[in-house]
């Protein structure tokens, strides 16, 4: 029971320390306020206890005091908001060039895939000092990816991608918890994040059964599912070219501008008619039931990897046919 007992969690990421600073400020503020209130109560309780011959003095109030004890808490709380918002941006905004991992949550396990293709269940080996981004989706109910030591947490939602990033600062093994109640084995949907020296990480990777990395798997799917037929320049091209589109905006036939992001790719694969690109016939079939969430993640990885190339009649002003 007393093994590993501690009152404060380890800080093992670049943002953890800053979250802890804010937390300790708030603890201090609470302790100060509580001590202040308690001691005032105690003092008044003793000083003004009921005694023979002493009546209470009726006091209406005091506008200056009301202003003071409205303004001071307001200022403190708004300050806490500002500080919290600032650190939140650090927690939320990811650096460019993160290592891209893909996570699928399902009742009741975590399936994780490394950028180089290795897969893990309920464990995540990462190198220390490298920014890691996880693109996550659930296969069933809402889960939540929570690593207390990194001070990061994000819901993992079915039907929608969410992402989380962190950079570990200390080698070690840390808890991974599911933090959104998801049914019977919610408390068993736990795992470990194992942070290693870069060299050890490489060694570990090479010791794992090699799988095709997500980008390569995605490329194979793109060909095997015949996406290339319609979406690459060629005699039977009937859909928009997808190279270099990731991160741009798409004009839809409903008149909206939607971002070409993970969710757009996923919904286009599963429900092509929903946000059809302007200028194209509604002929794409749905792949619902033919692709798993992991397949879709691989296709996304592939699409992210194919950069902008001049394509017939579209992006290049010179219009060089390929």
């Amino acid at each position, binding site marked *: 029971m007393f093994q590993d007992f501690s009152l404060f969690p380890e800080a093992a990421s670049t943002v953890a320390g800053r979250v802890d600073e804010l937390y300790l400020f708030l603890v201090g503020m609470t302790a100060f306020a509580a001590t202040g209130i308690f001691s005032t109560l105690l003092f008044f309780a003793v000083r003004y206890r009921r005694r023979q011959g002493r009546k209470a003095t009726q006091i209406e109030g005091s506008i200056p005091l009301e202003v003071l004890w409205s303004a001071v808490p307001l200022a403190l709380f708004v300050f806490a908001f500002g500080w919290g918002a600032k650190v939140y941006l650090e927690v939320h905004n990811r650096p460019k060039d993160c290592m891209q991992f893909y996570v699928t949550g399902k009742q009741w396990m975590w399936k994780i895939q490394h950028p180089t293709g290795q897969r893990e269940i309920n464990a995540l080996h990462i190198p220390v000092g490298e920014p890691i981004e996880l693109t996550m989706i659930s296969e069933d109910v809402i889960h939540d990816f929570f690593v207390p030591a990194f001070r990061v947490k994000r819901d993992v939602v079915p039907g929608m991608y969410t992402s989380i990033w962190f950079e570990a600062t200390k080698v070690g093994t840390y808890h991974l918890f599911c933090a959104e109640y998801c049914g019977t084995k919610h408390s068993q949907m736990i795992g470990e994040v194992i942070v290693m020296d870069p060299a050890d990480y490489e060694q570990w990777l090479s010791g794992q059964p090699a799988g095709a990395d997500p980008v390569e798997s995605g490329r194979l799917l793109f060909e095997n599912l015949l996406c290339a037929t319609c979406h690459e320049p060629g005699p039977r091209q009937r859909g928009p070219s997808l190279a270099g589109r990731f991160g741009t905006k798409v004009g839809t036939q*409903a008149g909206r501008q939607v971002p070409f992001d993970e969710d757009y790719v996923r919904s286009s694969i599963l*429900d092509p*008619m*929903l946000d059809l690109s302007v200028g194209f016939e509604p002929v794409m079939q749905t792949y619902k039931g033919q692709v798993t969430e992991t397949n879709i993640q691989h296709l996304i990885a592939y699409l992210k990897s194919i950069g902008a190339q001049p394509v017939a009649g579209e992006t290049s002003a010179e219009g060089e046919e390929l």
Partner: protein
Amino acid sequence: MPELAATHHGPLAHHFETLEQQKDTCTLGMWAFLVQEVMFFGGLFACYIVYRFLYPAAFLEGAHHLSPAWGTFNTVVLIGSSLTMALSVRAAQLGRRRGTAGFILATMALACVFLGVKWIEYGHKFEDGLIPGVAWHPEPGAAHGLRIYFGLYFTMTGMHALHMVVGLVLMVFVALRALRGRYSPDNYIGVEVLGLYWHFVDLVWIFLFPLLYLLGRH
């Protein structure tokens, strides 16, 4: 000094001091209740707005499966029922027992016509296979989100119909009380708050009709 009013059988309830206080209180109570009804239907309208934004094609397609003719007819019927209800309140105000009950009966009749039409419409949807979870077999190529459209259609019109049925039950009570002479020009608040409730039910339909039936029609 006001005395305890011996009012067990009079129009003034024992806990009120004057008839005017009683009337004002009942009116305020009904308005407060209607505010919460607005919030209830408001939640459904919020869902409608979200999904209409997400699936505009499905909502257009769904609306085309509905009959604007029946919808318009029903709207006229319901507005008519609000008229008869207002006339009932007026009759109560003038102390006319049979007029009060008669106009309530007319309101009930119109309400039943409305519900009858809805029954017919629901029947058509059943035949067309457009009732999620009960009979769902739309034509292939139906827009994604059509199921949600119809789910919302049935939930919203169903809840509305439920409120109409409650209104019908209340109308029976009020009509009977009217016939028994419980209302008078000094005390017809029961009819008036029923009227308020019924006008609200009408108002909900005035919003439902264009949002569900008239999408994409000019």
